[in-house]
């Protein structure tokens, strides 16, 4: 079950016509799907669209009432392939994932889908993970739209507009027989806003209807000669149909302004920030009325030449505001204007930054310069009115030295921590290893304090990323993969490949029972009962099934056993791939499960022992090797109360969940004796009390002499 419950949000999915929906952008999309009569939905979780998947998973009841089929797809490729249902039937389907990583995975199916064309509306909702807060390489989804000729919507980050984009997206897809991508930037996914709801609609044509009367058209199969015909169809029919639809429905918006000779073209998704920049430049008011004409591209691919020509004709200069690179829109615009012999200057990248997120600050500077160069009269005499003083007052260098970075890390009590601690100790023993890392919580091991992992090639590709390192002699390469990545594709791309190619390296599958990094969603090997999914599928059986002979299981919290199994894998004479399943339940999920139970047991008067760790500050010498081996958020530092010691001492704060790693690390690493484990006893039995009394009496008696002595010699 996912980290966050969406019980409340699910209720808002039931809102009918006339009611106001309030919530974040990605939930508005979910509601819009139901209002659009979607027949099936799939996808793969990942920021910033995880909540869409979570909410749908929590809304199975509503979905089944409406007759909507929902799947938590095995991967983005699975989700994209699911859209095949819209090729032959008038079924509306939607899938979602994190882009561009998910789009990369889905590309094969998407390209085939785009070539075949669709009968029912096919909508691909993409969380564009770009700019601040992104967790992936910085690329654009735009290129995928161009290469496969799918249409790309980039609506204004305003809930009614987002909802409209979903509804129009289906219609556009059906009108042009082309899948449509709807991209939402991180902040738009999380933006809180409101819109007037409509009634949910059951699909007019359902998957059951399709199965009752299967239909087939050879023209939709991806084999020649159909493929040649499909290419022609794209150009001769689908493309013009799309242009017609976009123009007729006025999907792109024009804001006339009162300054005739310049204009700004922008991606819809940047609208709010561009308007704020214009407002700060005193060229717009708070309500979106701009003095400079604006052409807002809610559809960023394809570009509509007639609209561009109309907007640009008679203007001295046009500024294209397009985030990310390469500057596809600018290139397209330049071709359109050239071919139509429109003489306006075309500006974009250059006056605006070549790369990186277009923050309001960057926009303000770029647009300011644009105005300065082409319409200096617009702001004359106004510059000083509300100019903002340069901030900060202190130099960037000094600030950088003063304010330490705060990289993310593994959570308190994370089961992956002891595993990486063991890896660190192992490398002390055996020297540095080549470690092929993967995507997941365990990616954080590439950051301090573990600093481990030489490359990350993509989700589930940890083992595949080590394929080249297969030689005789020397140290074996190590690959790390999460359980999420394993089921996503690692079983075949990594493990099966290693068996087939007779690799000799070591793959560790870190099994925390969930897709933890994306919010704790269930995966095929999840243990918890889930009425809608078939869990408990063994990773070990799967690994054996593809032919691995050397498989070991270890519990990560048992560091000694983990170290031993790692050492064995690296030194054994066995030739062939070695797989270790390192298991420990995600602590976030575990605590959510265990905490209420413990609380209830205590309230019910049951005898409960709660463990947590601590550090004795008077024996801690402030070297912090424990922290370098663990990095647990609850293991922190405090200023030493000892007037002689200058170094801060280790300290375990109250967020400790008593996972036991501190003790294991202290033992395994021969660290220091400062750690202790405290066992707090709730609702003790009479026997507990009696024993405690006896102990207290004996201990107090033994302590008395030392105390007397200390008192005598107190200075």
């Amino acid at each position, binding site marked *: 079950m996912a980290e966050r419950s969406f019980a409340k949000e699910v209720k808002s999915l039931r809102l009918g016509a006339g009611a106001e929906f309030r919530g974040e952008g990605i939930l508005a999309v979910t509601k819009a799907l139901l209002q659009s009569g979607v027949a099936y939905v799939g996808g793969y979780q990942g*920021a910033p669209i995880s909540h869409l998947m979570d909410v749908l998973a929590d809304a199975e009841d509503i979905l089944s009432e409406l007759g909507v089929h929902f799947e938590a797809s095995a991967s983005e490729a699975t989700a994209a392939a699911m859209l095949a249902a819209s090729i032959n039937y008038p079924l509306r389907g939607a899938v979602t994932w994190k882009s561009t990583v998910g789009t990369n995975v889905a590309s094969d199916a998407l390209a085939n889908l785009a070539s075949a064309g669709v009968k029912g509306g096919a909508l691909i909702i993409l969380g564009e993970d770009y700019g*601040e*807060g992104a*967790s992936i390489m910085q690329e654009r989804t735009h290129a995928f739209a161009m290469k496969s000729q799918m249409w790309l919507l980039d609506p204004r980050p305003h809930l009614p507009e987002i909802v409209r984009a979903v509804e129009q997206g289906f219609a556009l897809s059906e009108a042009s027989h082309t899948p449509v991508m709807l991209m939402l930037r991180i*902040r*738009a996914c*999380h*933006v*809180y806003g409101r819109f007037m709801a409509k009634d949910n609609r059951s699909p007019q044509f359902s998957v059951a209807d399709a199965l009752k009367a299967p239909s087939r058209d050879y023209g939709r199969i991806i084999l020649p000669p159909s493929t040649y015909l499909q290419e022609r169809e794209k150009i001769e029919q689908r493309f013009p149909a799309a242009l017609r639809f976009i123009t007729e429905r006025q999907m792109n918006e024009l804001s006339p302004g009162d300054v005739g000779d310049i204009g700004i073209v922008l991606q819809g998704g940047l609208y709010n*920030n561009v308007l*704020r920049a214009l*407002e*700060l430049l005193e060229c717009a008011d*708070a309500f979106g009325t701009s003095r400079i004409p604006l052409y807002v591209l809610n559809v960023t691919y394809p570009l509509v030449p007639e609209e561009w020509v109309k907007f640009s004709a008679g203007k001295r200069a046009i500024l294209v505001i397009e985030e990310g690179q390469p500057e596809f829109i600018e290139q397209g615009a330049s071709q359109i204007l050239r071919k139509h012999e429109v003489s306006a200057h075309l500006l974009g990248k250059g006056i605006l930054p070549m790369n990186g997120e277009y923050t*309001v*600050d960057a926009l303000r500077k770029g647009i300011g310069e644009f105005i300065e160069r082409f319409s200096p009269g617009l702001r004359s005499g106004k510059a000083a009115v509300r100019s903002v*003083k340069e*901030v*900060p*007052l202190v130099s960037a260098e000094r*600030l950088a030295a003063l304010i*330490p*970075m705060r990289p993310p*890390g*593994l*959570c308190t009590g994370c089961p992956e921590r002891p595993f990486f601690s063991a890896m660190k100790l192992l490398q002390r023993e055996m020297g540095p290893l080549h470690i092929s890392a993967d995507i997941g919580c365990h990616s954080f091991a590439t950051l301090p*304090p573990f600093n481990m992992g030489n490359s990350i090639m993509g989700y589930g590709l940890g083992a595949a990323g080590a394929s080249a390192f297969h030689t005789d002699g020397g140290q074996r390469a190590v690959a790390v993969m999460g359980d999420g990545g394993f089921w996503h594709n690692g079983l075949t791309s990594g493990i099966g490949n290693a068996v087939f190619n007779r690799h000799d390296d070591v793959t560790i599958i870190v099994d925390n029972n969930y897709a933890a990094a994306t919010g704790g969603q269930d995966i095929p090997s999840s243990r918890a009962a889930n009425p809608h999914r078939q869990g408990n599928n063994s990773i070990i059986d799967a690994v054996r099934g593809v032919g691995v002979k050397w498989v070991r299981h270890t519990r990560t919290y048992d560091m000694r056993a983990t170290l031993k199994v790692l050492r064995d894998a690296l030194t054994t004479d066995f030739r062939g791939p070695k797989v270790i399943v390192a298991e420990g339940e995600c602590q976030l999920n575990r605590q959510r499960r265990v905490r209420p139970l413990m609380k209830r047991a205590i309230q019910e008067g049951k005898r409960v022992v709660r463990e947590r760790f601590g550090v*004795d500050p008077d024996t801690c010498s402030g*070297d*912090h*090797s424990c*922290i370098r081996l663990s990095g647990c958020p609850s*293991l922190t530092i405090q200023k030493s109360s000892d007037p*002689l010691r200058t*170094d801060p001492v280790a300290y*375990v704060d109250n967020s400790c969940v008593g996972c036991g790693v501190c003790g294991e690390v*202290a*033992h*395994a690493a*021969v*660290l*220091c*004796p400062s*750690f*202790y*484990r405290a*066992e*707090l*006893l709730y609702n003790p039995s009479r026997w507990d009390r009696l024993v405690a009394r*006896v*102990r207290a009496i*004996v*201990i107090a008696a033994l*302590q008395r002499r*030392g*105390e007397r002595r200390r008192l*005598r*010699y*107190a*200075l």
Partner: protein
Amino acid sequence: MIQRPIKLCIAALGGQGGGVLADWLVEIAEAEGYLVQATSVPGVAQRTGATIYYLEFFPSTEAEAAGHEPVMALMPVPGDVDCVVASELVEAGRAVQRGLVTPQVTTLIASSHRSYVISEKSALGQGMADDGEITTLLRAQAGRLVLFDMNAVAEEHHSVISSVLLGAICGSAVLPFRKEVFEAAIRKSGIAVATNLAAFAEACRRAERGEESSPAASTSVDIPRRARSPELQPLLDRLHRLPAASQALALEGLRRTIDYQDPEYAALYLARLERISSLDRGQSPAGSGDGELAQAVARWLALWMTFEDTIRVADLKTRPARFARVRKEIRAEAGQLFGITEFMKPRVVEIAGTLPAGVGEWVLRSPRISRWLGHWTGGKRIQTNTVFGFLCLHALGGLKRWRRGTLRFKEENGRIENWLTRIEQLAPAHYELAVELARAQRLIKGYGETHERGWRSFSSLLSHLDVLASRADGAAVLARLQEAALADEEGIALAKELTALNGVPCEAPEPAAGAGV
């Protein structure tokens, strides 16, 4: 009048409830007839990194009058944020770094507590960011500053920091919303309402007063004139004859060495310190302060002389004060029972170190005996609150009276004497280098491998003393070498510095085979 939204930015840490705070603010704003837009950038920071929430508020009456909804931005703009709320001191500093705090516009509401980042925590010594300097920065940069330890207020009321932040926002009156509407939002959430309201109320009160916590004033130490025990009076008298600047440290040194061993041992400490101090008086050059060498030695000699052997650890672990401290730290309720389990892993060297010097050396020399003893090593879990566990540690701590005969004591004592001798030799001609040598003791700390690493680094510095003495900047170089020794565990930075110093490549100091103490 130009209508503009009110802009508020929350800088929080993953898991601190920044989202809850943002939700409350949305609810409050809507109840007060405002249009509100809120967004966030959690990204990978959803785990333990920094997170940003951004909200804009606009009066709906004005929007209705205008006939349009306002267009609100999705991110804070430097120079255009009315209120920055930071749930931690460094995050407040980061908001300044991002340019979000402007003297002319911004009210900064921040908690003064620290949640240390990994680079601060994992440093081999002192790596904490400078709180004082960050506070000065905040004071200079904020138009108005509300700064106090909000984490402490939250804990005091068994609440969460988001309630305290909400109270501070309310009290600072940056938002035109009524207090009762704030309170209603907390009530409506239905979770821990009473404690959250109490924390809210206190924070609100403190923010209304414009509370700004000031750094704690340093307290001057009073050196006692009379000792409780006549045995100690001569020591105290001698202490008073030391240079004034080193007396406070020397007093701590005395306390520590008495606590560690006995008054006689403290007398040895004092005698050693006096040796150095006499050099100080004559040699301390202008500008180097009063008795800098004596101060350094007072501190580092005390720490070295009270090296953490197994006896010391057992002694400290069995004290009543320790039991009380654990009770407090784990937040046991009054009268609640709890157990304590220690994690010890004595190795052969530690066992040998606790034996009489001759026996210990024999044990270490004999591989057979070492191997046999090895069977008794390995991870031990001792339950200090049980009679048996306590007796074990108590007996070990009781070996104190024979400590002077142990192998470890003999070794440490020799090392200390050697160190002091080198300081004495250097002080007349190379005073500042001697001071740095005294400070270099900080490299030797910890247990097991940590201690061995520290000793290796220290030894390699010692072996370069002659080279350093031949250079005018010897002291500065030694200071740099110490920093390098504390830069990484593997000794890479130190090897690099030593290579630069010698002009020939130096390897990172390798652990000696069978490295012992």
